[in-house]
């Protein structure tokens, strides 16, 4: 039997419309919008000012806090201004706006397609390089990668787990990347293994991508320690804790990090970015973005520069369909609905999903009938109906007692609720409020 996590989970229709579409590089537009807050943690601080000339790959913003990341210019040109611009959060945030002039790369970046297998850097140097290249978790959480690679004192990593699950419906960016860049990814995995000092790596891939499993198996054949693990299709397997449970059958305790059970999880896209940074000296300035949707005429996988407005990607995929009702940054289960097509692609944009008005409409709301389906599907073993009720009645004490902070916001509960209740909305509110209360208690 195929491995999976044991508790809860749902299986939404996969709808991988853009599967097997070759990654197509798209030219950067005339104006590019690079938000300063692209990663989890503190926003970066701009190091350029209005009128500065920048080259592709040049550092334009520094992550100064512990959990923060560098940002590099995705194009060459002139800094137009540093102003507020709408981003995926739905708010206007500080953004570096650059007018493109040609595409002149910073010196020392290897743009050839040759595969460089030899790893010359030491673990310390790798972490430094990853930090300097501004790499963050590309699965969508955008946690700065170099922080994850620094194993805290007293802890020891045993496994590197590569997240190639892509359990979100519709998205195919990681799938296609594996088909096209398997060898590079495997070198990236080795670099990561060296950085954290482990000799075992597991690449977890869901069974709905048999070609990717086969392809990766071929690529890892010559490397000891790296195995490809086929997993049963189950959402949310791509969640860190669930993936660890599925691959090595260990449970990360509540409120703790994966290193507690000797695991470090990295996304497959991150592994590729690490390869490019360490072996090719190329910072993170572009990423694979799936543009898809049932009514999109050409569902595609694009290689897009960071800062490209979403509108351009949609245009390349055939334009906004007639009855479009919702545009989602990410997948349908955890993605964020955006309120404008001016939103730029950031490091965390794994896909752009367009939904028709009919699809986007929420289902009718009934009273909770206490069917307990939410409890059955919750991968964290929580009771979403109770947390939802606590959120509705603003009872943060109950929310905290019932471990609202353990919720991973996978949305399985709301997806399955026959009463169509806004469970996750209320739980998110609970998490936000309880987080505030907990922080104020600490101070």
């Amino acid at each position: 039997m195929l491995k999976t996590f044991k508790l809860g989970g749902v299986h939404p229709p996969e709808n991988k419309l853009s599967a097997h579409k070759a990654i197509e590089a798209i030219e950067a537009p005339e104006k590019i919008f690079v938000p300063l807050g692209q990663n989890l943690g503190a926003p970066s601080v701009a190091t350029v000012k209005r009128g500065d000339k920048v080259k592709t790959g040049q550092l334009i913003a520094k992550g100064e806090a512990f959990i923060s990341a560098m940002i590099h210019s995705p194009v060459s040109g002139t800094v137009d201004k540093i102003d507020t611009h709408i981003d995926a959060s739905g708010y206007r945030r500080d953004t570096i706006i650059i007018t493109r002039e040609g595409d002149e790369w910073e010196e020392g970046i290897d743009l050839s397609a040759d595969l460089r297998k030899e790893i010359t850097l030491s673990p310390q140097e790798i972490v430094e390089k990853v930090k300097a290249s501004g790499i963050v978790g590309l699965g969508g959480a955008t946690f700065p990668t170099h922080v994850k690679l620094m194993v805290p004192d007293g802890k020891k990593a045993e496994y590197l787990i590569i997240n190639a699950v892509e359990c979100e419906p519709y998205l195919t960016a990681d799938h296609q990347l594996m088909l096209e860049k398997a060898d590079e990814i495997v070198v990236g995995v080795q670099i990561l293994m060296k950085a954290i000092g482990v000799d075992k790596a597991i690449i977890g891939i869901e069974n709905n991508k048999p070609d990717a499993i086969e392809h990766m198996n071929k690529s890892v054949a010559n490397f000891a320690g790296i195995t490809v693990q086929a997993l049963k299709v189950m959402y949310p397997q791509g969640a860190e804790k669930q993936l660890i449970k599925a691959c090595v059958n260990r449970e990360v305790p509540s409120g703790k990090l994966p290193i507690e059970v000797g695991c470090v999880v990295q996304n497959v896209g991150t592994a590729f970015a690490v390869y490019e940074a360490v072996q090719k000296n190329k910072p993170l300035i572009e990423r694979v973005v799936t543009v898809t949707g049932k009514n999109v005429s050409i569902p595609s996988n694009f290689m897009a520069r960071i800062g490209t407005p979403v509108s351009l990607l949609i245009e390349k995929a055939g334009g906004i369909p007639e009855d479009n009702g919702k545009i989602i940054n990410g997948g349908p289960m955890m993605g964020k609905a955006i309120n404008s097509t001016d939103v730029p692609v950031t490091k965390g944009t794994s896909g752009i999903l367009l939904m028709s008005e009919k699809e986007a409409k929420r289902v009718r709301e009934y009273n909770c009938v206490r069917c307990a389906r939410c409890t059955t599907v919750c991968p964290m073993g929580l009771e979403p109906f109770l947390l939802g009720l606590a959120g509705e009645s603003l009872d943060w004490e109950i929310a905290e007692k019932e471990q609202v902070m353990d919720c991973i916001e996978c949305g399985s509960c709301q997806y399955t609720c026959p009463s169509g209740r806004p469970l996750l909305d209320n739980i998110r509110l609970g998490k936000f409020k309880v987080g505030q209360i907990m922080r104020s208690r600490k101070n």
Partner: protein
Amino acid sequence: MDPIIIAIIVLGVTALIFAAIIFGVEKQFKVIEDPRIDEVSEALPGANCGGCGFAGCRAYAEAIVKNESLEGMFCPVGGNDLNADIAAIMGLEAEEKAPQVAVVRCNGSLKNSPQKFNYEGAQSCAFASNLSAGPGGCPNGCLGLGDCVESCDFDAMYMDKETGLPVIIEENCVACGACVKSCPRSIIELRNQGKKSRRIYVSCVNTEKGAVAKKNCEVACIGCGKCVKACTFDAIVLENKVAYIDFEKCRLCRKCQPECPTGAITELNFPPRKVKAEVTEENKEV
């Protein structure tokens, strides 16, 4: 022996034993409480609204008696009369406080700030505010989902369906501040009620650049500072690109209102403006 007599004896003895236990417990664990706590608590309205900053009326009474002071303590529901009563019980001096009332400092109605997108989901401003800027596009404006109305214990608020903004019913408002706390965007403020309930305030809290703010909302404060110059009492400050009228300093002269290019200053309960000359006269009167 007659069973009735047995029953009487058994029950009687049991009753005596329990009476003794209760008596002992009462003696042992008696809580000696200041009788004034009960008196103060009796005088309070008993709404437990939390407007005083304490968990309930009883907690407020306990705090007053414990501190032997009325400093910083004020029950907005009871107002000055109640404060004087409590001061009498405590044998303290009561401080007069100007009566206050809540005002909604946003005029981004559906007409002034048309919807840029739809919101669907939990009817909670706190959640919607975390999700995105709000249908009007203003990151500081009213979301119109009524967290404040929900929080009001005194039926002093309702949502106006036409504007999508909350309305405060002045007669019912006791200035408990529950709505102020419930608003995730700090739009609602408690302001002095003013003479004849006349109030003047900037009905905008948008801190964006003027051009951006104006694009989203017809009546946004663009931070031009014209009102600051117009004010003869230094009551208006411009901070974070938004003007604010200090109600302690404002003399309700109405000079600022016509200066505002976007109409972001709202006047309440004033007589309609007459020709200029008469306005000045009216000011003297006030």
